[in-house]
């Protein structure tokens, strides 16, 4: 345990509000990260189809998507900036004590962000005056920077859950090894989990826009292509996500057993632990099976640590279930599409498929945020797992509730305007050139 270099814990009456403000800021930003990860690849795929087939419809659609991509990126730039500021504004003691351990990741993220900003501008504003090949090539760094950027942010999150690359002597952080912190063991499964989530969220949201049009009778080729490309991405990523989710859960079971206990609300350490379903149904030994791939494995319970060191169980359990349930439902929806498309070469005809697809985007968003709530609230009461408590990290400044309220208002306004503008962007018929 460590208190921090700025003088240790301070009086802060609004720790909860500080956490909620941070959570809100993440919840607003993370959907945009999904688009940052997935949209460039989807747009480039369409442009590639255009270069291969010469069909101008692909180009027109890629161009329109790229404009939406730019708007979403711009909103992501500013909401991401809020996060950077909040690191210091809300958690100065955390930053002051540990930023030298994990900061390298953010430096590389900063460069990724530069590359994204530069090439997104060249790509979106360069449609008419760059040669087609140069233009397509300008899109590649956006995709790569999307990967390295999320890799680095995830690295920091992985590190907070399993801090490595330093030692503590006499209450001070010493022996800092930035590379060991950067490549912590949580990095890979968290990265793949988030990367796939990006494709699922962005894919289903975009597909939902076209499914909505489909239900309204807009079923021309433009809508069909938009739907198939976006849906394919989501439908392929979702089943893979179930496997990665299993990998992630087993890693948590091994390294953060108390967090896993919170997923299930397991009070006592149990051999052959059961998994309870909504409605009071209990499947015996399923939790042991899921967490360790062994029905008789012992699962650590919440009682293994003092009450003060346990995360709030209710919300973690609820979010975990929500994520798993929505993820499974989305996988089923995706499988419906993939099977028909593969076996019969056509889209489903049932109107219920399109209704489900309209709901799938927002549902994927909920699952995404629920997943982050699971891991982040599940980490509590620690900001740096088993090293620094969240209450030791918080700012001593006053006015947290005021800041929270103002930011909530600004974000509500921003979300409304962004939604209206994006909707407007999708309306007019495509201008298909020669």
């Amino acid at each position, binding site marked *: 345990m460590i208190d921090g270099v700025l003088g240790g814990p301070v009086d802060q009456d609004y720790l909860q509000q500080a956490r909620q403000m941070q959570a809100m800021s993440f919840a607003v930003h993370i959907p945009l990260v999904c688009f940052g990860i997935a949209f460039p690849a989807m747009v480039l795929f369409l442009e590639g189809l255009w270069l291969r087939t010469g069909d101008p419809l692909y180009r027109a659609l890629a161009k329109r998507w790229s404009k939406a991509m*730019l708007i979403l990126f711009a909103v992501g730039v500013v909401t991401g*900036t809020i996060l950077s500021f909040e690191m210091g504004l809300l958690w*100065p003691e955390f930053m002051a004590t540990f930023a030298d351990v994990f900061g390298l990741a*953010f430096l590389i993220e900063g460069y990724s962000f530069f590359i994204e900003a*530069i090439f997104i*501008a060249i790509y979106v504003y360069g449609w008419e005056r760059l040669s087609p090949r140069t233009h397509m090539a300008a899109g590649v760094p956006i995709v790569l920077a999307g990967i390295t950027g999320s890799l680095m942010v995830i690295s920091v999150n992985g590190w907070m859950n399993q801090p490595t690359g330093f030692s503590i002597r006499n209450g001070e952080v010493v022996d*800092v090894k930035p590379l060991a912190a950067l490549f912590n063991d949580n990095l890979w499964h968290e990265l793949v989990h988030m990367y796939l989530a990006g494709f699922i969220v962005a894919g289903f949201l975009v597909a939902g826009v076209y499914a909505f049009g489909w239900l309204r009778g807009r079923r021309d080729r433009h809508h069909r292509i938009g739907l198939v490309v976006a849906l394919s991405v989501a439908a392929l990523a979702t089943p893979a996500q179930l496997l990665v989710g299993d990998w992630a859960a087993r890693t948590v079971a091994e390294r953060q057993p108390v967090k896993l206990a919170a997923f299930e609300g397991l009070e006592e350490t149990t051999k052959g632990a059961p998994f309870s379903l909504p409605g009071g149904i209990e499947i015996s030994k399923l939790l042991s099976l899921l967490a360790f791939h062994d029905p008789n494995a012992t699962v650590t319970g919440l009682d293994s640590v003092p009450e003060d060191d346990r995360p709030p169980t209710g919300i973690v359990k609820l979010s975990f279930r929500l994520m798993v349930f929505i993820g499974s439902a989305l996988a089923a929806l995706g499988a419906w599409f993939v099977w028909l498309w593969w076996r019969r070469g056509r889209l489903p005809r049932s109107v219920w498929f399109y209704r489900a697809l309209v709901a799938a985007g927002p549902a994927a968003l909920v699952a995404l945020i629920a997943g982050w709530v699971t891991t982040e609230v599940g980490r509590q009461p620690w900001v740096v797992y088993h090293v620094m408590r969240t209450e030791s990290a918080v700012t001593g400044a006053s006015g947290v509730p005021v800041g929270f309220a103002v930011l909530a208002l600004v974000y509500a306004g921003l979300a409304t305007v962004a939604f209206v503008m994006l909707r407007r962007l999708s309306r007019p018929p495509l201008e298909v050139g020669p």
Partner: protein
Amino acid sequence: MLPDLTAGVALLALTAYVVLGGADFGAGFWDLTAGGAKRGAPVRAMIKRAMSPVWEANHVWLIFLLVVLWTGFPEAFGSITSTLAIPLFVAALGIVLRGGAFALKGEAATIAEARALGATFALASVIVPFFLGAAAGAIAAGEVPVGNASGDEWSSWTQSTSILVGALAVAAGAHLAAVFLGADSRRAGETELVHAFRARALGSGVVAGALAIAGLLVVRSDVPDLYDDLTSGAGLACVLASGAAGLVTLWLEWRERFELARYTAAAAVGAIVAGWAVAQEPYLLPPELTVHEAAAPDATLVALLVATGLGLLILIPALTWLFRLALSGRLVYEDKPRP
């Protein structure tokens, strides 16, 4: 050595942000003051055209600066962000409003919508540099002690040095924007706009110069230590260089040599930032925390410097390409494909 190099990287990022990001905020100032919807339309269109492809990249310098500060000087970072929470939070909100409104106003369908978003963009463009400047002024004035919110959350940044630095940041950004936009207008062959921006560049240059001199006088009475360092040795050299570059800019604008003026205007503003850094040296948070005391362990600084160096090898060619394309007018979004 390592701490000084790291501080140098932070200074580089700060200078790039003040010049490039500052000019984007300055463009917002000219948007705000461009007059009614009809009269101001050409000025606003030029601003939009010039800013659209580059503002996001320019903004990243701020993120880069924050990251270098918190990685290289974490204790100072935590002290700054907790004591100066108010001006920094207001600036962050301004950044959200400025960027959000700018990105979305292109899709506005009615004059009322365009006005509301345009006004948000323009107003926020003045707020951000003012509050960031005020925060910088607080550090320079020695109002940020080491600790978690140890300084006064109001008086630390409402003293006269902060207010003057805030005002100077707005004026310097406006001056840079006018100079850059004048050169852009010349490239685009918009003769009337060339003259409009030339007049603005001359006027804002005089105001920025006056504010810089006023700032020196305020610092002389309020922060004598800083004043002494600004008026001797390397500090004095920066002050004189800034003044000289500012005068040359005015002369170039007068003679309508707009492309060259870009560089002298940037040098004038950059020299102010450098002067502040040199005058504060060896302190990061005067009067107690030096750059060396604040620095992260060597292992972190080495990793940071190596990563910075490698990153610059990619960043510089990429940025160069972006600016060349933008300046040669090849980055313009058109909804209808060209025949």
